C-alpha cells in the first residue's frame, strides 16, 4: 500500500497507509492523527486540516483552488508550503509524500 509520512505537532513522525482516491485529510484522520480537527469534514470551508508540505514533495501536488487559497490566507500559519489536506486527493503517485500538521490558529 502507498504511504504518506506525517510529522505531528510534537515532532513525532507517523507513516500512514492510504487507499487511492482518499483525501489526505481522510487518510490522516483514519491513521490516528487526532490533532487534525477537520471540523468541516472536508467541504473546503474551515481550514482546520491545514498542513505544510515538505518542500521536496511540493512538485507532487496540483495547484490549489481559489477557495483553498482564500481559506489558507486566513490562517496565522500560512506560508508558501500551506495546503488544506481535504483538498489533496491521493493517488499512487503520492507515495512518500511528506507533510507536517500546521500549528493551531
Amino acid at each position: 500500500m502507498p504511504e504518506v509520512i506525517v510529522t505531528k505537532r510534537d515532532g513525532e513522525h507517523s507513516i500512514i497507509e492510504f487507499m487511492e482516491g482518499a483525501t489526505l485529510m481522510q487518510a490522516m484522520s483514519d491513521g490516528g492523527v487526532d490533532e487534525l480537527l477537520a471540523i468541516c469534514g472536508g467541504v473546503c470551508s474551515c481550514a482546520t486540516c491545514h498542513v505544510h508540505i515538505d518542500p521536496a514533495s511540493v512538485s507532487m501536488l496540483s495547484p490549489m483552488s481559489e477557495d483553498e487559497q482564500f481559506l489558507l490566507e486566513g490562517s496565522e500559519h500560512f506560508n508558501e508550503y500551506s495546503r488544506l489536506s481535504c483538498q489533496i486527493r491521493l493517488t499512487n503517485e503520492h507515495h512518500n509524500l511528506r507533510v507536517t500538521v500546521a500549528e493551531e490558529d
Partner: protein
Amino acid sequence: MSGRNFVERDYFTDLSVLLNPYEYFEEIRAQGPVYQMQTHDALFVSGYDECIEVLRNNRDFSSAISTSGAAQPLPFEPEGEDISEQIEAHRAEMDPYGLVVTYDGELHSKVRSIVNRLFTPSRLKANKEFMLSYSEMLVKAAVAKGRCEMVNEIATPYVTMVIADLLGVPSEDRDKFREVIDSAPPPGDMESTQTEGPSPLEYMGMFFFGYLQARRENPGVDVLSELAEFTYPDGSLPDLIELVKLSTFMFGAGQDTSAKLLSNATRFITETPGLQDTLRADPGLIPDFLEEVLRLEGSTKATFRLAVRDTKIGGVSVPAGKRIVVGLAAANRDPRRWEHPNEFQLKRPRIREHLAFGRGSHTCAGAPLAKAEVAVILEHFLKQTAHIALNEDKHGTPGNRTLNYEPSYIIRGLANLHVDLVPA
C-alpha cells in the same frame, strides 16, 4: 441523581425529554459518559471526547442506522465479534432510501466527494446575493406587519428558496417542494405519524431525476449540471439515481435543520437580556453568536452508529452489534470540555469545535450554508427592528413560557415561534 435509584426516561418516546432534553442528558451523564441504556439495548454516549472517538472511528462503527435510530431492533441477530457481513446483507432494511448519511467506507467516500464541492466559499458568495435580496423582502413584510411566525412563515420558505437557488431548481417547482416538505413529519418522529402519498424525498426525487437527466443530455453552467457531469475520483460516472438521492437529500436536509437554527437563534435573541442590542451595535458578532447557539441548541440532538466489531469507547467494552446513541447536544454541554456549559457566552474560546454538525467523515456538508444563510437573515431582522420579543399571547410571559417542539428524537426544533417586531 445516580446509582441504583436511577430511573431512566425513554429518550425515544418520552415527551418530557422532548421539551427539555438537556435535563435528561444530565441525568444520563451522571451515570458516566458511555452509558448502557435501561430502556433499549443501546449505549448513550454523552461525553464530548467519547462522541468524537465514535464519530472518527469509521472502522469500528457503521452509520447504517443513522436515520432509523437506535430504538429500532436490528433486522438480524448479531453473531460473533465482527458483523460487517451481516450489516451489508441487511443494509437496505435499515435504510430503505439508501441515503448518503447511512453509507460506510469506500462508497461513502465516493458519494461524499460529490457533495464536498458544493458549499465552498465561492459558491456561497455567488448564492449570497439571492440570500440578501430574498431575506430582505421577507423581513420587510414581517416588520411592516409588526409580527411574524418565525418557523413556518419565515425560516422554512427562506431556507427552501436558498437551497433551491443554489442547486438551480426552477422557480415554478419550488413551491411544490415546499408544500410536500411542510406537510411531512420531522425526521426521527416520536409520534410515528402515518402519512399518505409519496414521501417528500420520493416526490422531489422525481423532479430531480428529470433535471439531472436533461442536464446530462444538454449540460449548462448551473450546480445541477455540475452534479450531472461529476465523475468519481476513479474517473467513473455516478449512477443517476445516486445523484437524485443526493440532491433530494440535500434539499430536504438543508431545509429542516437550517430553519430550526434560525428559530432557535431568534429565541436566544429574545430571551437573553441585552443580546439583541449588542448584535445590532456590532453585526460582526453574529457568526460568533450562531456558534454558541449551535453549541447550546443545535438542531440535531443525536445521531446513531452500530458497532461493526468488538471495540471500545472511552475504555468501555462495546460488543459487535451494539447500537450507539451519539449524544451531540449532550457532548456540547459536557462540563469536562466546556466551562459553565449551560451558560450562554459570546466569544467562547474554541467554540467552533462544538459537535452540532457532527465530526469526522459524516460531518454535515451543509454547515457552511446553514451558518451563512441564517447570519444573513438575522442581520436583516436586527437592522430593520428596534426590538424583537416573543409574543406573550402565544408563548406566555417570561418565566412562564410555552414553547412547542417538533416531536423528534433527532431534531431539536421549535414547531412555531411567534415574535413581535418593533420597527427601527
